[in-house]
């Protein structure tokens, strides 16, 4: 185990079967990742992921019930409540630092991450509407340290410009959110609904987690 994104060649042989080599991804969603160097010891692996919708979309989330909720949890919950789950454009995630138990400064950092990501979507459909950010913010990593915000802010536009819809884009993003994971966790699926029998829908999901795992989210 190492604290870095599990790349090709470093995935244990027994886990390789869980890493998809292709996928069917939902229309209108894009993914990207880049290296921000959140942890100084991480000099080469991507640690910033961005998922975006090409148009404003519905958003919902569940969050930990731990009473010490990290800044991105608070900020994202407030954002979704303020917007009523409408007009969402993106999810920005950093690994390497949880931005947890970081006080008011941590909240400001999480807000800033969201605002910087919003700048990627300053098109007609996302003009300011008085409800603030349109971005879900997530962080994972060590607790009790402030984010290296400057490095992250600097790299968000890089992630924006790298957005794409290929399998490699999605897989790279899934890798970038990893911490002590040994393999990226990415799934996609097509399905149909009886309400639109001629339409093929898709779902994509990525997740990370290896330790401190006993979720109790609401």
């Amino acid at each position: 185990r190492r604290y870095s994104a599990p790349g090709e060649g470093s995935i244990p042989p027994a886990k390789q079967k869980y890493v998809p080599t292709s996928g069917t991804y939902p229309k209108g969603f894009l993914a990207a990742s880049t290296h921000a160097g959140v942890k100084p010891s991480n000099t080469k692996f991507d640690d910033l992921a961005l998922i975006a919708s090409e148009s404003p979309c519905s958003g919902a989330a569940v969050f930990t019930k731990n009473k010490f909720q990290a800044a991105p949890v608070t900020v994202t919950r407030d954002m979704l409540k303020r917007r009523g789950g409408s007009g969402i454009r993106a999810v920005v995630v950093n690994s390497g630092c949880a931005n947890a138990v970081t006080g008011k400064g941590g909240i400001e950092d999480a807000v800033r991450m969201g605002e910087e990501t919003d700048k990627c979507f300053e098109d007609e459909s996302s003009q300011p509407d008085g409800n603030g950010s349109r971005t879900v913010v997530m962080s994972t990593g060590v607790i009790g340290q402030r984010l290296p915000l400057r490095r992250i802010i600097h790299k968000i536009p890089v992630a924006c410009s790298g957005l794409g819809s290929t399998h490699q884009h999605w897989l790279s993003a899934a890798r970038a959110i990893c911490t002590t994971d040994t393999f990226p966790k990415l799934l996609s699926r097509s399905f149909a609904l009886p309400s639109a029998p001629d339409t093929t829908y898709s779902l994509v999901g990525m997740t990370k987690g290896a330790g401190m795992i006993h979720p109790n989210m609401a």
Partner: protein
Amino acid sequence: TLLGILCTDAPIAPSALQALLSAAIDKSFNSISIDGDTSTNDTVALLANGAAGGPLITSASSPGYAEMQQTLTAFAVDLAKLVVRDGEGATKFVTIRVTNAASYADAKKVASTIARSPLVKTALYGKDANWGRILCATGYAEGVDSVVPAETSVSFVPTDGSAELKLLVKGEPEKVDEARAAEILEAEDLEILVRLSERGGQEAVYWTGDFSHEYVTINGDYRT
């Protein structure tokens, strides 16, 4: 920490989306445990942009809602299982199925308690068919009325489709075929089946792993 991001091009209104996600999470990410610690950051988000078209799902009574719920829940379960497959130090993938409970909540509490038990998890790592530890954890699940000791049964269910190995039947220990037990415990995947009584009809499933030396090494080295 657990993070999850799900996106779909199905058309779903925000209120319906939150309900769909919450229900799916209950039976997926809220039904896994690696080490029993709940993070400060756990978050799962679901986005729906409607780019594929079709009629908008606005509530539980909308056409397609039930099917969307089913699809989303199954998908979230598969994602959650991947997290368990990568549990720090884990060498096993363990499904805990608790049946014959008076309620789903009861069954889930028992399954969660077993999944968090360090002694159950170390027994699994040691390939020991230690039904006593499973039973012990079942018994201390708080606020559960469904546990009837004289009616409780514990089995190991192999994932290769072969017959379950009964360890305890209606509170009475079975004469366990140790060779068969060792064979079942040699496999990476295992199901522990606990039947709580002879009456209840509710069932819950939880997924967990074992505890190994490696878990201590990883987390002894980890620095904040």
